[in-house]
């Protein structure tokens, strides 16, 4: 059973997959589905799909061999929040190259990636559509 999220409470969708690039499309697919349920436009959904794929690729690229990528999709107030975490395999900060950085800046409202003692994590926010 998933543990309660300090930000999202209990109302979130969780996806856990092996930290392997072949599963990135599942993370993107979940983002598309969750975004569609929230009423985002097709363009916004495509941007979300792109951003989640980029963020997950960064974690997977820095993962330990048997690590799992865990994603949570939820809403807090007027924000869609997507959090990801994965066991990290290096001591360095995760490097975000300029192309990936440009993608994140232009597709979501905020993107943070952080290195912790034993894992890396990211947090994406995007304002939910006006109802």
């Amino acid at each position, binding site marked *: 059973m998933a543990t309660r999220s300090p930000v999202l409470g209990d109302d979130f969708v969780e996806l856990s997959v092996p930290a392997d*690039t*072949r*599963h*990135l*499309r599942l993370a*993107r697919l979940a983002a598309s589905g969750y975004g569609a349920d929230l009423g985002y436009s097709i363009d916004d959904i*495509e*941007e979300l*799909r*792109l951003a989640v*794929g*980029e963020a997950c*690729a960064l974690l*997977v*690229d820095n993962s330990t061999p048997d690590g799992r990528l865990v994603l949570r999709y939820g809403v807090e107030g007027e924000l869609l929040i997507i959090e990801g975490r994965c066991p990290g395999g290096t001591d360095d900060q995760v490097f975000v*190259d300029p*192309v*990936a950085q*440009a*993608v994140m800046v*232009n*597709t979501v409202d905020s993107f943070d990636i952080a290195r912790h003692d034993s894992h890396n994590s990211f947090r994406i926010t995007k304002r939910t559509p006006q109802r």
Partner: protein
Amino acid sequence: MTDNEKKLSFDLAVEGSEAVMTVAGELDPHTADDLAGALDDLTSRDDISSVTLDLAEVSFIDSSGLRTILTAHEALSSRDAQLTLRSPSEAVHRLLEITDLLEHLDVR
């Protein structure tokens, strides 16, 4: 999921010094290496002076796919050969726009 289920395919047609590669599917970190390998073979051939990538059927592309294309562009430019991106899909067009590369590559 096996590698047989990769969601990317490409076909190559070479006529004289011109090569056309038609790419279809999802171009992400799981598939970009396959395309990079095929493009490496092509860009290293001295008898090829022009490579066209037909991207009309690319349903998804991220920075890994774009880097693969940029690497091919640099390899070809370094020997005065040409890379053209033909009929970019909406996904490709969006990424080129976001990254400000639409004006820097030959897109038709």
